[in-house]
């Protein structure tokens, strides 16, 4: 075969003028102040502020001019809001203002406990599923099965099996919400394990446990935090629904769902019984969702499409 004339390719050293690197890098931007950060992310600022307010209410409820939220006073039932009973009283004469303020405790405890527990369990399940390939099929089919039942229905079913208490409510909602975290973490882990920096760590002689701790885990935390805030909001709503239908915390405990359930039959004549707890629930859920949206945008803009 004869050779075909081929032009000599480019010599990059002749083409490119090579500039030496500067000896000193640009001085690093000083760490942005907290205020600057909040200015850049108004959603986080508003959400965090509202949530902080709710926390203050929950912690300081005994000192905010409330009376015993469980004390019955049959002689002053279903009173409209007044100087004594700021939000009025319910069918048993209990002070709604006090009950709503104390109810913040249940919502926040349930919301954050579920977010924490579901994240931890979901992270563990997702990591195993993503890193140990043979378990993936089994775990993911089980997760699919759990996700085929709507979380509210699953939580109601689980609560039907047991006694109503805050612990059981947290457990039931955690089981119902955990699959979402597990799936997210698995997806992120599957993506991460193919990343060149993980392969570089393997060639650098790092063993598997260290690769998980050093290279995989820290990179799953951002998407997981965002997911956790959504779960927190969703758990508060599920808790209220459970209480509302009588499957949640015992009726004596003031929780927003319970208060609304009691006011349900009088809704048309005494709307304030339902409206005050509903307003607080909406506000809290809004705060958490704002925080979640803001965190998502701040931590990883690409995530906006995924979650």
């Amino acid at each position, binding site marked *: *075969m*004869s*050779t*075909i*004339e*081929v*032009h*000599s*390719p*480019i*010599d*990059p*050293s002749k*083409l*490119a*003028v*090579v*500039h*030496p*690197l*500067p*000896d*000193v*890098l640009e001085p*690093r931007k000083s760490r942005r102040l907290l205020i600057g950060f909040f200015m850049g992310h108004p959603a986080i600022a508003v959400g965090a502020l509202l949530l902080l307010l709710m926390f203050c209410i929950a912690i300081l409820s005994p000192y905010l001019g409330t009376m015993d939220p469980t004390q019955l006073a049959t002689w002053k039932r279903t009173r409209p809001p007044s100087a004594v009973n700021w939000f009025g009283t319910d069918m048993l004469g209990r002070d709604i203002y006090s009950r709503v303020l104390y109810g913040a405790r249940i919502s926040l405890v349930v919301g954050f406990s579920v977010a924490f527990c579901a994240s931890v369990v979901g992270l563990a399940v997702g990591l195993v599923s993503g890193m140990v390939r043979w378990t993936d099929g089994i775990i993911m089919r089980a997760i699919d099965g759990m996700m085929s039942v709507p979380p509210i229905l699953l939580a109601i079913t689980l609560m039907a099996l047991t006694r109503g208490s805050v612990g059981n409510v947290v457990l039931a909602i955690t089981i119902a919400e955990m699959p979402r975290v597990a799936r997210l973490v698995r997806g992120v882990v599957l993506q991460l394990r193919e*990343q*060149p*920096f993980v*392969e*570089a*760590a*393997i*060639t*650098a*002689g*790092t063993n598997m446990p260290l690769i998980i701790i*050093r*290279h995989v885990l*820290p*990179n799953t935390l951002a998407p997981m935090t965002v997911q956790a805030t959504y779960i927190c909001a969703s758990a508060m709503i599920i808790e209220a629904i459970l209480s509302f239908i009588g499957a949640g915390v015992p009726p004596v405990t003031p929780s927003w769902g319970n208060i609304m359930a009691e006011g349900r039959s009088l809704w048309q004549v005494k709307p304030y019984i339902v409206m005050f707890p509903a307003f607080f629930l909406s506000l809290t859920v809004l705060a958490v969702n704002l925080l979640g949206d803001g965190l998502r945008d701040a931590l990883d803009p690409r995530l906006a499409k995924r979650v």
Partner: protein
Amino acid sequence: MSPLLEVNGLKKHYSLGRPLFGHSREYVHAVDGVSFHIDKAETLSLVGESGCGKSTVGRAVLRLFPITAGEVRLGGERIDNLSAGRLRNMRRKVQVVFQDPVSSLNPRMRVRNILAEPIKNFGLVRSRAGLNARLDDLMKKVGLPADALNRWPHEFSGGQRQRIGIARALAADPELIVCDEAVSALDVSVKAQIVNLLQDLQRELGLALLFISHDLAVVEHMTHRVAVMYLGKIVELAPRHELFARPRHPYTVALLSAVPIPDPKAKRSRIILKGDVPSPINPPKGCRFNTRCPFVFDRCRSEEPELRPVEEGHLAACHLNDQPVSESQLRGVEAMARRIW
């Protein structure tokens, strides 16, 4: 003296997964019998179009997955079947620089920790002071200021990140670095910097490089020998000047004719390959290039050409090298090339 790296009959087949019913399994023949060697302080370039298996060869040498068949020897010792414990020592000798400067550095680790990882893993220093001295030395070698150590990867540009990637590879004190498209993602001036840096380091440290690239201009600038891959096989392997001046495989000719010339008036004959690369699941019988080769004849469709020496140090796998090409055949091909151009 045995070569630093020896690859014999390397195969890597990926299973496409078991069908739910039945037993017929399909395999992607990503790499299908590749042999080559690299000497100490030598650069071997692996070129070919996307999906020809060149990166798979690099990863097999790095032992990032088990290989299907064949053997990989490093300094005469087989490394493809080592146990995890023995593998560790081998890992130090072969390091990698990846294509994408963004995803090759963990965004949640400072540069200091990224570079310290291999040093600590392989126990290359005994004290904290020793570590710091080594890190400073690495920074100097790749031309980055020492204060870069305490920064995060996102604070650097693409070229600077690639320098960090090279520093990480050097940290393990390797004998061979696999550069998997190491300069492909960089713009031209930065590309030249990194290529020159790699050459300087090679001279200074006596490193061998397996330079995987599709950029023939860069390859011609920096390599000693070139291996051209097509559909999982090496079709031609020759010293740089030899390959660029007298290619002996039609695919190589086509590749070289596709290199852009920075002169709009330059006239040349181009071979434009028609069609796509055949599927590596069912590679064509006979010569793998027969579906696109402008010189194809009957023998190519039935008999697979072997990679055989056609000159001293120049191997090619093409039946055309066996038989004298008739004058009329050659004229026909040239006329075709002109018409296409």
